[in-house]
């Protein structure tokens, strides 16, 4: 439990530090990239659904899997599309 809390605190610092010096140019792709990352809830959704015992759980779980997949796939693809455009123009 306390280990998880430690992990949480450290992750907060990593998140703060990593993002705190980014230039405004990249705000939009960074937002959408971070957006894709929280789609990792898909892992949780799969684990829940894979162990679902009632029909209700199963339905909720499958819905979560579907939604999380949209988040993950859409997030990474849209970010990549944006960044691809940026890339062509740099030295």
């Amino acid at each position, binding site marked *: 439990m306390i280990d998880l809390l430690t992990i949480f605190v450290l992750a907060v610092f990593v998140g703060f530090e990593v993002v705190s010096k980014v230039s405004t140019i*990249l705000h939009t*792709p960074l937002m959408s990239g971070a957006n894709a990352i929280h*789609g*990792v809830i898909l892992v949780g959704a799969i684990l829940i659904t894979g162990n679902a015992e009632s029909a209700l759980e199963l339905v*909720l779980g499958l819905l979560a899997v579907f939604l999380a997949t949209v988040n993950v796939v*859409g997030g990474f693809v849209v970010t990549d599309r944006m960044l691809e455009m940026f890339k062509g123009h740099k030295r």
Partner: protein
Amino acid sequence: MTVQLVYLVAALCFILALKGLSTPRYARAGNLIGAFGMAIAVVTAYVHGAVHNGLLILVAMALGVVVGIPAARSVKMTAIPQMVALFNGVGGAAAALVALAEFLAVPTSSVLFRVATVLTVLIGSVSFSGSVVTFLKLQELMTSRPVVLPAGQVVSVGVAVVSVVLAVAVSVFPSGFLLVLLALAGLALGVLFVLPVGGADVPIAISLLNAFTGLAVAASGYVLANTLLIVAGTLVGASGTILTRLMAQAMGRPLTNILFGAFTAPALVAVAGEQRTVRSGTVEDVAILLGYAHSVVVVPGYGLAVAQAQHAARELVHLLETRGVSVSYGIHPVAGRMPGHMNVLLAEADVPYEQLKELDDINPGITSVDVALVVGANDVVNPGARDEPSSPIYGMPIFDVDRARAVVFMKRSMRPGFAGVDNTLLYNDKTTLLFGDAKDSLTKLLAALKQL
């Protein structure tokens, strides 16, 4: 053990992804590393955790792919904000559903577990409904002006109190029914939170909701005792919070004012400007002005995005350059619908990255610029932000185009910009107004220039 190791590697990938995304050079690689981390985590979860219902899960994922990829592929670059909002919303909903399902499966665990469940459900539903409302606003399926309900503040506070009470209640007596009520309260709260946020501030709300979803995912990590969810969710929560603050700073306004401004701000009425004279020019006048200039700065704004005039602008600039005019773009950090949005739009229109200049590149040499061409921008060139301490946007850095030799405004009317503040520059002697939709005007201008 090996499963946990894979999750650790995935978490590492996510950190590297965020690091990469903060430097232009490695941004794309960073995103790919993030996608890689996600892929290995999902495959591992499936192989190891999908004890039952394996096929159904595959089907649900396939459906998600079928919906997600085409949406992400086909979305116009001007519509990125609402797309991000939607993806964010579904993520929040997924987190809430996961916590709900887990609670139904094992409702009788420890208090700490229930607190984490309650947080996931509440934050996840706020994030979901809030994101849906931002989507509706940006997609113009509803008004993008701030909506202040009658007694809005009272209602919001009321719903917030109810949510807190329900949250405490569920933490103490595990009850599925109360948890569902809490989810409903969260949905209401999300709507109430975003309604009063006005059009151009919506991106900030999205960014904040993004951070919320991250926190919901982190909390669900406690529920499932899954370190990957904790690390990834927290990363997104923390970076989203910082990003939100950076955006607010780029707009020169405190965050509270952006989110709750509509409740407290005196309704801004644009000072009627009709008494004062403005000079409206014809397309030909402007063509001559531009065609014989030495140096031109183009300042694009929200209106350019709305009119989708980025390609027309690129062509105009190109034509001017072939005539020997030196042209650069002045990109304001908050021009457009989202911070950094103009960069994306112009990059899409194949404008070379090097032509995009920031405030500090343009302003020092502005006095030797012959024409500043303001396309669908307004607030970001309003001298009031610099000179009038009483102005609501005082303090926001602007392009000092009023110090250029001449200014051309392309807009449709005398209406003020997003901030609702009158722009004295419109009445300046230096200024020529070219009324009309930005794309139309640019296209006509192109034609006229070719005649020169």
